[in-house]
């Protein structure tokens, strides 16, 4: 598989290369996720929504009306952009973002109490259901937040904010002995 990612992850040097002891609340940082942003052309919002819903293993995050982030762990950045461009031809603009964003996966029984230290949005399981995603402010950093499991959330941040957000998440999680490491899945 060809890797076109910038070889240096912004958290290299801050996270150990070998997985350490994992606490119940854990911050997992996948090194290689293909990400593209998708913007619907005017009047095509509904057909793009339908197209993205049928896109298989690509996970889709809401960013705003007619605007999404599309993520894949199996596609390369190039193949994701190609697949989306084909799927949404003439209805949406697709831009490759893999090197420009960093994904953080936060999970554990205290995940909401950790996130509440930075995010003012209501994350109660009943109001922020699994599959929900939205742009929110975490401290002073804008992120795309998605609930990906019962007690699991993913935050997608701009690459240049990754270190600052990582520091914030560590402080937010210190009370719960939050552990952190690169994802063992790559």
């Amino acid at each position, binding site marked *: 598989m060809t890797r076109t990612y910038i070889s240096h992850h912004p958290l290299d040097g801050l996270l150990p290369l070998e997985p350490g002891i994992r606490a119940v609340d854990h911050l997992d940082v996948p090194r290689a996720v293909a990400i593209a942003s998708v913007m619907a052309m005017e009047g095509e919002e509904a057909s793009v929504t339908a197209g993205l819903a049928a896109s298989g293993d690509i996970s889709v995050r809401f*960013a*705003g*009306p007619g*605007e999404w982030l599309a993520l894949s762990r199996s596609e390369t950045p190039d193949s994701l952009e190609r697949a989306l461009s084909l799927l949404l031809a003439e209805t949406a603009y697709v831009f490759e973002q893999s090197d420009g964003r960093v994904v953080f996966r936060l999970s554990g029984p205290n995940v909401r109490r950790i996130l509440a230290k930075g995010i*003012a*949005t*209501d994350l109660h399981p009943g109001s922020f259901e699994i599959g929900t995603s*939205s*742009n*929110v*402010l975490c401290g002073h950093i*804008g992120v795309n937040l998605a609930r990906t499991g019962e007690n699991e959330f993913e935050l997608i941040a701009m690459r240049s904010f990754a270190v600052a957000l990582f520091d914030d998440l560590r402080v937010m999680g210190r009370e719960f002995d939050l552990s952190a490491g690169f994802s063992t899945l790559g």
Partner: protein
Amino acid sequence: MASLIHCPHCGIRPKEEFSIRGDASLVRPDPAASDEAWNDYVHIRSNPRGRYHEHWQHGAGCRRWLVVERDTFTHEVFSVTDAASVARKAGR
């Protein structure tokens, strides 16, 4: 200041996610309008006590411009609408 804004796209959000531009009731004059009309449009603002229509941008959320109708005295928010649909309704 109203502290929670119900964004039509993102739901209930803290005011920190928004930036405020000001009066949303102003209509841009014709390019050929008098200097006086342009001066009023660009510089002259009232500072009302009570109900007010304001442009807010949800910068940390959907990034859309919104029209927030709120009370500058009680901080009550009456409505929040996407600015594009407000403009369309007004025929602009």
